[in-house]
């Protein structure tokens, strides 16, 4: 899975969970401040990303830094994809 696919997977999952279209988001878009993600939607987002990318995430091991922006979340997923390969 290349970087654009990872970002696209995240944006699609966010659209589904938040039930709105995100046409103008970029890797710099902030998850909490700009998209108003909350701790409940984070868990649902993780479940969706696990399902679509095959990675396994222990939510309790996550750091806030992983969830700053779409880009930092993509970094985190790419890092875990490498591990599982």
């Amino acid at each position: 899975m290349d970087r654009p696919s990872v970002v696209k997977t995240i944006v699609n999952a966010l659209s589904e969970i938040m039930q709105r279209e995100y046409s103008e988001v970029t890797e710099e878009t902030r998850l909490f401040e700009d998209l108003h993600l909350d701790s409940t939607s984070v868990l649902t987002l993780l479940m969706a990303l696990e399902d679509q990318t095959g990675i396994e995430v222990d939510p309790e091991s996550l750091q806030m830094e992983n969830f700053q922006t779409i880009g930092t979340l993509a970094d985190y997923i790419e890092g875990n994809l490498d591990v599982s390969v």
Partner: protein
Amino acid sequence: MTTDYLRGIKKALTGDGSTPLVLVCNFEAEAFWAERYLGLPSVPFSASTRLVRRMEELGVLLGGPDDYLVVSEDVDPGFRRYAEDLGFALPTVLVPENVDPARSTTENALASPELLARLGGIDGVLLPMGTTVPEQKLAEETGLPLAVPGAEVFERVNSKIYGRRVAAAGGLRPVPGFECETTAEFLAVLDELEPLVAQGERVVVKDAYGVSGKGLVVLDAAVKVAGVRKLVTRRAARTGDDRLHVVVERWLPKRFDLNYQFTVGRDGAVAFDFVKQALTEDGVHKGHLVPAELPPHHHEELRRAADVIGARLHADGFSGVAGVDAILGADGVLYPLLEINARLNMSTYQGGVTERLLPPGHTALARHYTLRLDGRLPFDHVRATLGALLDERDGERVVVTCAGTVNANAADDAPFEGRLYAVLVAPDRSRLAALDAATQTALTTLESR
């Protein structure tokens, strides 16, 4: 002057309507009660801790001139002037001399010997929003008696598992669902409910100590059932800890949510305070409306439920203010107990405002406005921007109830998120909606561009 509302609370909790209160508005109480329990796996961070803590400033309009309010940051002088111009006689505001933003206000107070000495000299009682271990310690350190029971009682009666059991034992119409205390129990419940979810039913899983809107997950597709099953199974295997304290409930189609409040006196007397109707827009909670659009028989049913729940709370050692969430189903059936919040509620802090500024026969909306700001916003600027909306005109006005939350996240990168809490008053619902829209429009001019 002290409002009748506050005098009533003092009388119920201390036997005397003039007892001075030391208020600590620890909105983060649930997080302390949750410490010994395990909810759904969750990420170990929250974007809004500072904002939640800063809601303590709501206590400014609850306390009277004989009372004290302990807060970590002093009240904006502009907001103080505004509240006094409205005719409120404010409590004495006390700020701990050692404040660390990472700590709660009670923890800051415990680390501040000068404040502890000052509190120790007050001839009054300590009324926290809800007692947790730090507030209990504050009572011990200062010698101020608690107006309400200790942390252990609060922890016990604020669990959603407890609430479901009270409904069942008290014969109150239950929301169909289950209580779980172990992962094995939870997985068995998921097995039972999965076919329903596959048929399009929605099921909600809530942490026993989740704050409203947090610590819950809605299962509306088989893939989500599988996801949550995987998460809890994996955690239990990794930690060897099989505990899981959640309730699992069918998602009921509803007309609206309700919230009612009553006060359980030390003597066990239950006084019904009020009922409010939740206002939602596109499924998002927007605020609470009074009066609730309920026929008299539903009001009666809620009063009876309050008596049943209040009696049970008192039997279990509780006295104090309690809020209960209820649902009016789409079919007109009332579910009088969705969850108990046996602590001061948002509505408690608005009790004095509605008593003084809501004329009989009028309608009110309590809500907050989210602001995206580029820098700290002094309250005088907010006041100037809202201008005439804040003045009483032909039965309508906006009353700001908490301004400290506007700048709670000001240390973050811009734009940061702040909240302005308000109660809107108008003669009818349509004018209330127009006032709400006008307020939103005015506040937008303050936002980051």
